[in-house]
C-alpha cells in the first residue's frame, strides 16, 4: 500500500488535526497506515468523540462505537477514510 495520502485521506487528515488541535503533527505527516490510537498518534477516547462530532458535521453521518468493526474502522487514517467515503451523505 502507498504511503501517500489520497485526496480523501488528505481532507480527513486536515479535519482531524483541526478538530483535535493537534500540535505535534501536521495533516501531511499522518501516515495513512499508521495507528491513530496507541503509539503512533497517541489519540484517546476523548479524541475519538471529538473526531466523531467533526465527522458528523462535515460528512453528514453518525459514527457508532458499538460497531464490532470499530477497531478496524479507527485503526488508521486509511481505514477511517474508507469508512467515511462509504457512509458520507454530504
Amino acid at each position, binding site marked *: 500500500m502507498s504511503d501517500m495520502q489520497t485526496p480523501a485521506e488528505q481532507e480527513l487528515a486536515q479535519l482531524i488535526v483541526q478538530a483535535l*488541535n*493537534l*500540535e*505535534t*503533527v501536521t495533516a501531511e505527516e499522518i501516515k495513512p497506515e499508521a495507528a491513530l490510537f496507541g*503509539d503512533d498518534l*497517541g*489519540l*484517546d*477516547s*476523548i479524541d*475519538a*468523540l*471529538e473526531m*466523531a*462530532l467533526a465527522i*458528523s458535521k462535515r460528512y453528514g453521518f*453518525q*459514527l*457508532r*462505537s*458499538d460497531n464490532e468493526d470499530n477497531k478496524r474502522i479507527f485503526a488508521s487514517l486509511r481505514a477511517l477514510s474508507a469508512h467515511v467515503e462509504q457512509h458520507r451523505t454530504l
Partner: protein
Amino acid sequence: MNDARRARGPPVASMIRESAHRMSSVLETQAVPAPRLPLLGQWQPGARLARHCGRDISQLEYLQDVRALARLLPDRHYAINLCECSYHFLVAFGAVLLRGQTNLLPASRAEAVVAEVQRDWESSHVVDDARVVAAIHQAERGTQADIPLIAGDHIAVIGFTSGSTGQPRPHPKTWAGFVQSTANNVAALRPLVGDAGFSILATVPPQHMYGIEMSVLMPLLAGATLYTRRSLFPADIAASLAELDEPRVLVSTPIHLCVLASSGQRVPATAAVVSATAPLSAELALRVEQALDTVVLEVFGSTETCVIGNRRTATEDSWQLMDQVSLSPQPDGTLVQAPWIAQATLLQDLVECLPGRRFVVRGRHADQIEIAGKRASLADVTRRLLAIEGVRDGVVVQDEGQGRVRRLTAIVVAPEIDQAAILAALRKSLDAAFVPRRIVRVAELPRNALGKLPRQALLECMRSGADAPGSAV
C-alpha cells in the same frame, strides 16, 4: 476477620490497614458485630438487573454467574478488577465480595500503574473479562437461590488516586458505607425517576468511583437495570437508550454531553442525565436539558469521599450537600466528614458554606488536575517526566483552555533525546489523557532564585519555546 487487617504488606498497604482498623474499632466500641447486608438491596429473583448482549439478565441469573466465578477465584485477599465490559465488572465485583476479598481499582489501566498496584498488594490476583466469560459458561442454572450477605465492615473496594509523591494513594470503601452513600444517590434521583425501577446507561467505565456509584451500585442496591453495551458516540447513546425501558437515566460526563448536544442526534425520552468528572458549565447544562428534554443533575464528589452533593446546574449555582455529610473549610481545601468515610478527608476544592446545607466552590488547589473524569497530580506527571533517561529538567503544565479539554504541555530540557522517545516513555506510565499533547524544548527552565517556576514565566516559555518534533536547542 477482615482481610485487609490480616494481610502483610509494604508501607502503602499499611495505610489502608490502619484505616480499616479505625473503622472496625469504631464499630467495636458499639459492642455489636457489624451488620451483614445483602449483596442485592431489592431482592426479586426475576427482576431485571442488566441488559447485556441483547437480552435481559435477572437478579437470579446474575447471582448464579457470581457464584460460578467465586468458586474459581484463587485464595487471595485482593482482586484487581480490570473487566472492561460493565456486566463482567458487576459479576467480578460480586464474586470478589462473596469470597471475602476486596476489589482493587487502579487509577488507570496503564501497564505500569497496574504493575505498581500488584507490587504493593502482594496478596492480589487479576480478574479480567476472559476469566468472567469462562466462569459464566460453567454457571449452574436453577430456580433456588438465597441472597448472599456481606459484612458491613468488609472493605468492598479500594480505589486509588495518584498522590503528589507518585505513590498511589488507597481509599477504602466498606460495604455498609456503599449502602449508605447509594441510598443518598438514589434519593437524589427519585424526584426525577419516580418510586419504581429505572434504567441506566453509562458512558463512563465502572473502574472509577463515579462509575461504581452510578452504574454498579445502583443495579445492585436500588433495583435499577444497567445497559452494558459500550456507548460513546451520540448515535450509540441514542440506540442504547432506545433499548431500555423508561424511566431512563444517562450517566455521563461534560465531554460526552457536549458532543451529544452538539450532534443534533435525536434521543429517546430521558428522565435524568447525571454528570460528573469535570466541571459542567451552566450553558452546556441548559443546552443538554433543551436538546434532550431532560433534567441534568451534576454530582459533586471524589474518589476519596464518594458523591457528597448535587445541583441542577442549568438553574443552580450552589450545591445541595447530601444527608449526613459535613464540610469544614480549611485554608488549603475543605475537610469532608461522612459516615462512609473512615476519617475526615481534605479535598483540594475551596468551598464556601451557605444556609440550607448548600455550598459553592470557589477554586481548587492548582496541583490537582482533572481531564475527562480522571484526576491526577501535576507533580506526579512531572515526576514521571523527570524519571525518563535523557530528560535533564522539565515540568508539566495544564493549558489555558477556553471551553475545550485542557490538555497538558511538557516543557523539557533534553538535548539528547527526541520528542518521540519522551512521549513513548510517558505512554508506558500514564493514562493517555495525561500524556502531554505538546512538548516544548528549552535550553533551561525559567527557575527563579528559589528554584521555583513562576507560572507566568512558564507561559512565556511556552509561547517562545521551540516545539517542532525533535528540534534541538
